[in-house]
């Protein structure tokens, strides 16, 4: 593919049961494009954690995924509360999630560390009270 392909998703912040649909769709699309299963796995895990975060911490947002010859770029943008202390948020086990979220299997403070672990590049841009944009790349 010499053309760059982009997929855009709008994430509903109210519906935890539907969180992950966008990541699922991207996984299928990358499979059809013939992307390696190793890269697909990294993208799926990182995007899914990011998608869950948008639902549990930021009331939804949008995700753009673009595929080029060299990499897959995911941009997750929300208009949530922002992240006050990125270093703290990146620590394994740090979470501000409510008990209710924990009982659903998330909120163990592993999401951001997982996103970092499974991608080759990750950048967090956040403004308190305005929102957060997380850009992640997986090299092909």
């Amino acid at each position, binding site marked *: 593919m010499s053309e760059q392909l982009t997929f855009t998703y709008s994430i509903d912040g109210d519906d*935890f*049961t*539907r*969180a*992950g649909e966008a*990541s*699922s769709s991207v*996984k299928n699309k990358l499979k059809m494009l013939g992307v390696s*299963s190793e890269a697909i*796995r990294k993208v*799926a*895990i990182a995007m*899914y*954690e990011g998608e*869950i975060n948008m639902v549990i911490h930021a009331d939804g947002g949008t995700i753009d995924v673009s595929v080029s010859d060299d990499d897959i770029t995911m941009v997750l943008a929300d208009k949530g509360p922002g992240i006050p202390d990125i270093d703290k948020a990146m620590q394994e086990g740090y979470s501000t999630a409510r008990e209710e979220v924990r009982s*659903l*299997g*998330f909120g*163990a*403070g*592993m*999401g951001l*560390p*997982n996103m970092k*672990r499974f991608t080759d590049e990750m950048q967090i841009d956040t403004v308190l009270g305005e929102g957060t944009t997380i850009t992640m790349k997986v090299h092909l």
Partner: protein
Amino acid sequence: MTIREMQQVLDARFLYGEELADLDAQFVFSADMMSDVLAYCGKCSVLITGLCNPQVVRTAEMLDIVCIIFVRGKLPDENMLALARGKSIAVLATEHYMFTACGILYENGLRGGA
């Protein structure tokens, strides 16, 4: 060990995926926190969990898991089973607690894969 053999040693029921019963698995991961599964599941293709909500199936999907085993008699609802059908993920339910279910599978030669 095939999914059929796991079903038998665990006295489990197939909630979906009898047609997948011949699939073979070697490595198993068990957890109730889905982020732990995403982080450490590695090459595991079977997930044992006591958590029961649609995100369990989503997590399994992201990791290409072929079989989810619900312990403690947890029963997924129709929405979850529909998700599993759509992704061809077999779903078993056993009355055993997590520790016992893991122990039985370990005794039968399955291992953790991370």
